[in-house]
């Protein structure tokens, strides 16, 4: 079981402070000034008394400026602008109640997107805002910031905090990757779209020519045929068609390319050393520049099968909606949380928002296709890592019920194989190879039944489905 991907946790402060309280610096300053001057007078030593003078002067200067009142500073965070997945996002931290405060340290999100590890110290005196650039997770419900704060009066003589603030959570809809639309074989549904139809009508694909008859449109006259035969002919074309797509998400498992814990002491030592070196590098680079978030997905962060499922579903939805089709989404592990068929840009927003909340299911079962509630004319796109026979059986049953079925394979197979090279367990490679071999058999069985199987891992797939679907028609 792999935890849901883009949710972070912020450690709680151990003992949240209440109100303003004197710090060790105040006691230290008073004690040293008193001790220095007192010992100097007692021993008749001017050099000892002199050491206490700058402390006394510093205290007088620090306490003579305005001190904070009873009111405690308050911080809140808000996103400044839209938040897109895997892209820099600006978080504005508004801080108020800073009268008499010299400095405030705010917990701010890091450039890498971790909301807990970054801190920014800002000047006090009046209310202000600290803008921090962080990086949003690829998709999902994300804790973006929680601006806990620690405030100090002049010279840190009094302090307040750590004061806990409200969490800023955002739902990051998945990015829309650009793909080509499905090139479906001619279909019978719909009247206005970008698909071909088997029905004659107004469209782009030529069927044949027929003689002109009263009522035909002049623009459909084929003038070259007229020049050859001296008779008027008009083009007969296939009608354009739109169709319905149902995206069925298999969220029963989440496969994440990841190495396991080291086995031997040497491997453990190497792993620890590598982590320590990385931390030191980040620390030293943090001394010379404020880190800026990278734009785009981090190649170091592996993408799980759920990530690929969501990315593929978003891309297909955007493309098909743009082509004028109607798209619905069905989570096969929670079929009550489906999205009905719809079209248009608002529907895309609806689907992206719903996809942002997809999680791996705790249940391992999948309802039978007769319970999926599929419209008879819909093209079913099943997105699954296909790692067990339940998914295979469901796909076969759905195709057997007469639906046009497209299976999109969302297992990060290449990344899994790459990870096994670094995995300390010697049997890891064989395990993955066995898993992939079983899958190959399953996918071949689907292809043998004329079901189009596409692979998403590369971020793009072949969309000409005519060949595979034609094979299926021939089998009938």
């Amino acid at each position, binding site marked *: 079981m792999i935890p849901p991907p883009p949710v972070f946790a912020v450690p709680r402060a151990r003992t949240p402070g209440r109100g303003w309280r004197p710090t*060790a*610096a105040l006691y230290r300053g008073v004690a040293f000034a008193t001790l220095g001057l007192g010992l100097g007078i007692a021993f008749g030593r001017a050099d000892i008394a*002199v050491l206490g003078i700058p402390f006394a002067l510093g205290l007088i200067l620090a306490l003579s400026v305005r001190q904070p009142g009873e009111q405690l500073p308050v911080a809140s965070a808000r996103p400044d602008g839209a938040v897109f997945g895997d892209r820099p996002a600006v978080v504005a931290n508004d801080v108020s109640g800073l009268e008499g405060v010299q400095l405030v340290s705010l917990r701010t999100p890091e450039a890498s997107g971790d909301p807990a590890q970054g801190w920014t110290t800002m000047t006090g005196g009046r209310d202000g805002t600290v803008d921090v650039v962080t990086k949003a997770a690829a998709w999902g419900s994300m804790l973006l910031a929680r601006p806990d704060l620690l405030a100090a009066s002049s010279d840190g003589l009094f302090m307040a905090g750590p004061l806990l603030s409200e969490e800023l959570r955002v739902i990051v809809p998945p990015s829309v990757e650009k793909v080509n639309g499905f090139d479906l074989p001619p279909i019978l549904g719909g009247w206005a779209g970008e698909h071909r139809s088997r029905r004659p009508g107004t469209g782009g694909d030529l069927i044949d020519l027929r003689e002109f008859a009263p009522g035909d449109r002049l623009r459909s006259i084929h003038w070259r045929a007229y020049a050859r035969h001296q008779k008027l002919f008009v083009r007969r074309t296939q009608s354009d068609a739109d169709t319905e797509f149902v995206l069925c998400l298999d969220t029963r498992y989440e496969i994440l390319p990841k190495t396991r814990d080291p086995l031997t002491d040497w491997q453990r030592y190497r792993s620890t050393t590598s982590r320590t070196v990385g931390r030191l590098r980040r620390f030293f680079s943090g001394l010379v520049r404020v880190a800026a978030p990278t734009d785009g997905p981090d190649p170091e962060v592996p993408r799980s099968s759920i990530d690929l499922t969501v990315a593929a579903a978003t891309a297909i939805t955007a493309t098909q909606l743009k082509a004028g089709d109607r798209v619905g989404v069905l989570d096969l592990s929670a079929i009550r949380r489906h999205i009905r068929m719809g079209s248009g840009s608002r529907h895309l927003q609806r689907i992206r928002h719903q996809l942002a909340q997809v999680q791996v299911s705790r249940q391992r079962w999948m309802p039978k296709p007769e319970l999926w509630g599929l419209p008879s004319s819909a093209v079913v796109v099943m997105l699954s890592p296909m790692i067990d026979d339940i998914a295979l059986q469901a796909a076969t049953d759905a195709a057997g019920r007469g639906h046009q079925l497209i299976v999109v394979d969302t297992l990060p197979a290449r990344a899994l194989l790459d990870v096994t090279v670094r995995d300390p367990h010697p049997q890891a490679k064989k395990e993955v190879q066995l898993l992939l071999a079983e899958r190959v058999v399953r996918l071949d069985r689907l292809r043998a039944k004329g079901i189009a199987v596409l692979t998403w891992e590369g971020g793009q797939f072949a969309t000409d489905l005519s060949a595979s679907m034609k094979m299926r028609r021939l089998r009938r």
Partner: protein
Amino acid sequence: MSADQQPRERSAYDLAGSHLEEFETPTVNRAVLPGGGSWLRIMLALTTALTMVVLWKEPEIETQVWMQLFLMVGVGLWVLMRPGSAASAVLLVGALTARVFLGHPQLDGSLIALVVLLPLVHQLAALSAVVPLRSNVQWAALMPTGLRYFGAVSATVLGLILSQLFGWW
């Protein structure tokens, strides 16, 4: 449907993703000291070390050398690890005690050095206690403390120099 080869206009379907226009990363905090919390501690370490050097007394027995080194390094590390604790007070009182019992009642370089360094240790420890280690710090947040320190120390040093000129030592 064939591949869309035509240049596309931005539409509601292109709300996010790799085909968006380049994102202009805003730079908000310009007058910021990167890793300011760490720099404060580095400064604190240097100041503590300098204070130890000023307080160093050449002992006659080798064991005392090691004991003195052990104490200095121990207190220095304590100050660095817990700047908000009593470590700085121990260091300052230790310096004062050393000056009382081992120093000479005269105006010399070590006295001026201590006048500069001891308040600096105090201020840096006070700031380090309220600024987290990895915090980026706006320069303006440190400026008031710097000005007060500079004012207090320069007034004291000026007084020392004037008193020397007047022959009060």
